[in-house]
């Protein structure tokens, strides 16, 4: 392995990658194929930590599965490498986690309550609430209407909007899903994200819905 001194003496060609991403990149360049699988183990209420599994096939042979804890940065790297999930449903699960990561900064900057209000309003006003998967969840969501006179409203709305559009870009441009399929996956991901955020399935399970 070259020393730091050697590396710093030459212009850097690419930004350094996580060691796992370097390994996966190399294997893909060497001809291996790979798919990911997201697993969110259910517990009595909610889920245990999410897991990310990689299914590599090298020279036609399926390799032992690599399992690690879900990591937002590794997932972003896998999207850049154009690695898809095992099927559309799992892709939606993955993108629900992607939305969660994308929304974190909005939550931090504006607070959970305001974020909820603007997100809920955006989904209703921008037509997403008519999509069946999302409609089924949104009918059980109640938030305070956001104060639109607040100087924060436009910024918060734009950040949420960009987070959703960014995921569509990843599905269509980076992972290569056709527009209709990408949209279907994204709507399913939004529905799953909302379900967890507003505890809809859990409340149904408890009999309070």
């Amino acid at each position, binding site marked *: 392995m070259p020393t730091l001194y050697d590396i710093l003496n030459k212009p850097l060609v690419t930004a350094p990658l996580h060691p796992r991403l370097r390994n996966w990149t190399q294997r893909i360049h060497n001809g291996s194929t790979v798919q990911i699988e997201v697993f*969110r183990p259910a*517990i009595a*209420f*909610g*889920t*245990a*930590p*999410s897991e990310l599994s990689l299914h590599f096939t090298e020279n036609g042979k399926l390799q032992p599965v690599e399992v690690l*804890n*879900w990591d937002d940065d590794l997932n972003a790297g896998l999207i850049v490498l154009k690695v898809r999930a095992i099927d559309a449903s799992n892709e939606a699960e993955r993108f629900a986690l992607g939305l*969660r990561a994308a929304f*974190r900064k909005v*939550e*931090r*900057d504006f*607070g*959970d*309550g*305001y*974020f*909820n*209000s603007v997100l809920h309003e955006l989904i209703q006003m921008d037509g997403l609430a008519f999509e069946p998967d999302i409609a089924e969840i949104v009918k059980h969501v*109640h*938030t*305070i209407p*956001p*104060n639109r006179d*607040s100087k924060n409203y436009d910024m918060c709305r734009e950040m949420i909007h960009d987070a959703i559009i960014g995921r569509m870009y990843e599905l269509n441009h980076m992972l290569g899903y056709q527009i209709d399929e990408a949209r279907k996956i994204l709507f399913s991901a939004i529905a799953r994200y909302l379900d*967890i*955020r*507003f*505890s*809809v399935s*859990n*409340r149904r*399970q*408890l009999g*309070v819905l």
Partner: protein
Amino acid sequence: MRQCSLLLFVSTPTEEQELENVVRKHDLLFEKNKHPTLGEYHWLGTVGHETVIAIRPVRDRGQVVMGEMGRLGSAARGIQFREATGAIGIVQVGMAFGIDSTSQKLGDVLVATSLIPYDNRIVRAAHPNYITDYSQATRQDARPALVALFGRERKRGKHSFGVHMGAILSGAARIQSRIFRDELVMGVPDGEDAIVGGEMESVGLLAATTSADDPIWCVVKGISDFADENRDTTIATARPLACRNAAEFVLSALLNDVIN
């Protein structure tokens, strides 16, 4: 069961009373409700951008039940209320011990950026004595959105009490020894956030998080003592002030975030 976005958790009658005093001072609702299975709670309605429920301390045959374990413990109640209401966040409000009486004062407010569950320890024989290994007592991060909310309130600087943000020790010991307190602070693993205090109830909130990589809780507690030899006499007089300041800080954070 009413839906809300934020749960406030209090564990003792004093914490509950001081929360009510502060709520009424701000002209907010404090409506007692009872759910057939979850028990009693207070509906505060809209506070800033949040809809808020305060969970009452639970009583069993007239006695307040404390601690995180068991069907009436904070862990179980946190999970039950969180699932039934759809709350995104839980804030434990009340009193805690400080760790340094030179830089902290009674009534100052502590905000947890992480919790250190110190009961997660191994006691090993080290003849003729023993050593306590706290290496497993790793920090659990608080909800970033709640930490940011309280960070913004601290920055506004409008309170007469100090606000200290950092890691909070949490466990079952009622500590009355400066030596034990300091050994605990020195013994747990280092982290990015310095330790600012300790308390007894909040470790149960770790169980209320439904997705372990997405915490939903934060802890805001006023300093009622310094876990030293004077603990019992100090806490008797400082308890109401500590609880009141913590409640004031939380409610102000929620109300002021609307304005800004």
